[in-house]
């Protein structure tokens, strides 16, 4: 009956042409009233708690940096460098996109940040170079998820803290699966784009692009170098990109003025105003699930229902894919990490290996509707339709799922670098 009420509310608001945010907020309020403590004020509190989080700071900063770069000419010049370097190869630019995401993932612990930082340059580049819009969207949105499996990784840190598993071991364990995913996605983009028109390699074009784009090229160098040598954290790197982009566009390229900065800031605020409440709703649902003890019940049921290690691993993968559709990665780890961890140990599964399995699963969840953070971020940043992106990432999800199976049943891929 109560579930019917929820569906009725959804349908009614949809027919009455309400915005997605209002529908989600109203539905969550309904959940608080019916299954929670009956107090809607908790919904507002959860929005606050979700937003009062320094991890999210990187998102507006990278959106601003991306918008500045494409409004000015940093992005354009970077694109020309990448195209000049890769367009002679079959599917070269597609491969370069995947590789750029992997490279950025090695400094960023967050998937939306990876998507935004790389997508600002590569998404328009791919479209200009004749790749399909579908591939362009799918590749940056999916390869952006590498941010959380290639170390450093915020979800792996959280998993390490709450299960008392060494974070350093988790980071080491993420290396090979991360490379595998990169290679698999890279091969796919080479093969699927082998017919995209190529140009002959021209050294003079590349040199001209480099000369023209030296200031643009310095941005990734500063970002990677700054983080690797410990000058700033990945979140701070986002602010450094904004600062650098402003300086270069203002002093070197001289194509932007104060009016442009204002427009970019405003546009970003509006984007996040449409995005953050959705993230907050996921947190609110997580809190209700936790307080109602649903994860415990689920884990108990799971342990009773399966008896072999293989069945358990398959069941966990299936369950995490489903939960990854509904809630965000960190919430899912907090809710299910410790409980599934305990069950996994009873089947003799290595805790580090299990952490990697969880994170790859939830990485796929970043691409699945309705709460697929990377899809939502791509939608806001690239101004594309939600369902178009969901459709575009499908082949990538299939590849990631294949790698997930490999990693699940070949523990040595995760544990190779980990000290016993």
């Amino acid at each position: 009956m109560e579930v019917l009420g929820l569906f009725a509310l959804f349908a009614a608001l949809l027919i009455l042409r309400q915005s997605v945010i209002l529908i989600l907020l109203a539905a969550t309020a309904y959940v608080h009233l019916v299954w929670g403590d009956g107090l809607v004020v908790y919904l507002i509190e959860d929005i606050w708690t979700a937003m009062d989080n320094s991890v999210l700071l990187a998102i507006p900063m990278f959106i601003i940096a991306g918008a500045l770069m494409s409004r000015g000419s940093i992005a354009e010049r970077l694109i020309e460098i990448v195209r000049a370097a890769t367009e002679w190869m079959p599917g070269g630019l597609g491969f370069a996109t995947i590789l750029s995401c992997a490279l950025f993932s090695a400094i960023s612990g967050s998937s939306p940040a990876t998507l935004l930082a790389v997508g600002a340059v590569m998404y328009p580049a791919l479209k200009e170079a004749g790749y399909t819009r579908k591939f362009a969207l799918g590749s940056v949105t999916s390869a952006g998820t590498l941010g959380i499996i290639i170390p450093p990784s915020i979800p792996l840190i959280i998993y390490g803290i709450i299960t008392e598993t060494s974070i350093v071991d988790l980071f080491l364990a993420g290396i090979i699966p991360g490379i595998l995913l990169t290679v698999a996605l890279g091969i796919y983009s080479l093969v699927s784009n082998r017919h995209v028109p190529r140009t002959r390699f021209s050294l003079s074009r590349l040199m001209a692009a480099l000369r023209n784009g030296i200031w643009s090229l310095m941005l990734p160098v500063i970002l990677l170098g700054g983080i690797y040598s410990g000058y700033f954290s990945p979140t701070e790197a986002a602010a450094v990109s904004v600062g650098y982009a402003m300086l270069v566009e203002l002093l070197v390229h001289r194509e932007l003025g104060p009016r442009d900065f204002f427009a970019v800031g405003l546009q970003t605020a509006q984007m996040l105003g449409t995005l953050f409440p959705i993230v907050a709703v996921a947190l609110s649902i997580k809190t209700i699930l936790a307080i109602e003890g649903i994860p415990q019940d689920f884990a108990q049921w799971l342990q009773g229902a399966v008896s072999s290690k293989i069945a358990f691993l398959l069941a966990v993968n299936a369950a995490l894919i489903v939960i990854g559709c509904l809630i965000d990665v960190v919430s899912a780890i907090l809710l299910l990490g410790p409980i599934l961890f305990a069950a996994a140990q009873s089947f003799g599964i290595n805790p580090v290996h299990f952490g990697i399995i969880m994170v790859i699963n939830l990485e796929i969840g970043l691409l699945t509707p309705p709460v697929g953070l990377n899809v939502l971020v791509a939608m806001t940043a690239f101004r594309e339709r939600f369902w178009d992106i969901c459709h575009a990432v499908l082949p990538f999800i299939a590849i990631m799922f294949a790698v997930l199976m490999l990693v699940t049943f070949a523990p040595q891929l995760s544990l190779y670098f980990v000290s016993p």
Partner: protein
Amino acid sequence: ETVLKLGSVAPSGSPWGKWATGVAAKIEEVSGGELKIELLLDAQAGDEQTVLRQTSKGRLDIAFVSNVPLTLLSQEMAIPSAAYLFDSPEQGTCVTYEHLSDTLGGIMEGAGVVPLTWMEVGHYVLFSKEPVSSPADLAGKKMRIAPSIADAALAKAWGVQGVPMGTSDAIPALQTGTVDAAWFPTLFGIGIGTHKVAPHVTVTNHARLIGTVAVSGRTWAKLSDQEKQWLGVFTAAGPQLTQGILGAEPALLGQLEGAGVPVKHLSAEEGAVWKAAADGVLAAIIEEAGGDAQAVADRIAQAKAACGS
């Protein structure tokens, strides 16, 4: 039957998680199932600050948190974790369990929570990338500190540059070298593998982090006298947790040493150098905290005298 929701960030497999699980089972037993504690461990109900905030407002019934978020209720809560506050672990235990409720209970009740017992988090040790044997070795280095006045005061006194950041940022920051060292409660620091990125462990035991089990004032008002009495199981079980944690610290450090991690134990003289360098930390915290901080510190001093060294 009454069900009370307890929130904590403690991992369910940790000594704190196991202790809370045991206490909850005991309460269910002594109350014949009339009073149940539903445990929301593993940060399921949010970070420590969120747990405490939701407890004071009655969304959760019991908070099981360290005194770091308690300083949000009142900055005086930072005082019990001042470096070198106690002369010995025994004195610290005595002051905590015999006298702290009189000293700090009023402040907490004023902020909407009723303390049941204090919680042991344990002693701080230092994890660094390079060997450290005296505070002078820290000169020019960067130290990850918790964003608290107690940590900031100590970093200043030891002449190291304190870089405040959240727990989850600490490991990557040590890896990339944004910071050179960090201090953590022993069990927690080793649990998350800090020694694998900052392999030199110096057993400074320079401060002791405590926490609390506290009931929401809104919940407390609704409980019967009988139910309040059953909750006394928490109060009675507090010292066992302390015993367990303080016992586990040397054992765990021993394991690290056995595995070849360089663990530096300080001799009495070396320890005295570290302590002397931290002189004035308490005064700095009192000044920074303001409010009743001086009175709280005075009462802790009296309690120390009453407990003996």
